[in-house]
């Protein structure tokens, strides 16, 4: 399958950005959730804290797993299907929306860029397999 080189480059760029801002956001989320977990545990017991900790872990995991998918698309493009590229693009879009809602703009921008890159990648796959 011949995917346009510029799309792969964009995917690479978005992936690197996602990972970099993902680490920054991880620390941010850790700091934030440490405070929130303390408060929630104080008010509602350990379960309240655990729920918030799980939510913030899921938030980082969505963005990060899209980065892993992008890495796979770059390294082994023959394994990537158009339907999964669309799916992960939507996951990145969700991650971007959540980040934007929590005012984490760099991570939101990188997730949105990754969503765009994956979407273009899916289109390229479709074009090459028609």
């Amino acid at each position: 399958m011949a995917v346009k080189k510029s799309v792969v480059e964009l995917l690479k760029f978005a992936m690197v950005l996602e990972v970099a801002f993902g680490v920054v956001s991880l620390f941010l989320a850790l700091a934030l959730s440490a405070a929130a977990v303390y408060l929630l545990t104080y008010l509602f017991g350990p379960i309240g804290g655990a729920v918030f900790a799980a939510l913030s872990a899921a938030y980082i995991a969505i963005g990060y797993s899209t980065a892993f998918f992008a890495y796979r698309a770059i390294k082994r493009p023959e394994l990537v299907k158009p339907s999964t590229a669309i799916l992960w693009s939507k996951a990145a879009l969700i991650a971007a929306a959540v980040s934007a809602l929590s005012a984490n703009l760099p991570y939101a921008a990188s997730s949105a860029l990754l969503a765009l890159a994956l979407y273009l990648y899916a289109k390229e796959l479709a074009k090459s397999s028609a």
Partner: protein
Amino acid sequence: MLGGCVSSSLSAARPPLVFYGSSNLLAGRFLHLHAGEGLSEFGAPTPEAVEYCIGAGRYAEKLDPPYTLKELLAVLPEGLREKAENSVCLHRAFYLSRVDPRPLRRAKIYVDDPLLLFALEPYTPAYAVGISGGKRRDVKCGADPPTPPQLAEAEARVTTPEEFVDFLYTKDIFKQLLNLLLVLKLIWRLRRVL
């Protein structure tokens, strides 16, 4: 007398609707839909279409739309693979599965190509005579001869692979936005109640 038996049973449902079968079961205005020539290896044929062409519908159920012929071949058992690879019907089903349902939003549609019926079925309620199985509603008619239908000829637009990806992508996002709107509306209502 309400006219064609299909038309009288269609009036209860919401448009758009697609009907497959003999046109003398219809009465009223219908869009007679054709599709241009074309074969393809990329699209999203429904399991029913794959079942119709090569009898392997349950293997197609495992695949998420859109998929390629190569992906379908990978999930098929050894014996069916060659049959699928050479099947013109299957290539045609891939091509027709990319039919654009958007211009047909408010029409009653009559098709005489079963593959076109399978392609439109995910977007519209479908009525069929003569194809067994599936979720389609079969129509049985009485002896009354209906008035002849008015068929307006129309050519279905088949999207390119890229447009099809666009279509699938935006369709789901708009659905999500609609859900979001519903949730917001619900919250708004709850706020006023509380």
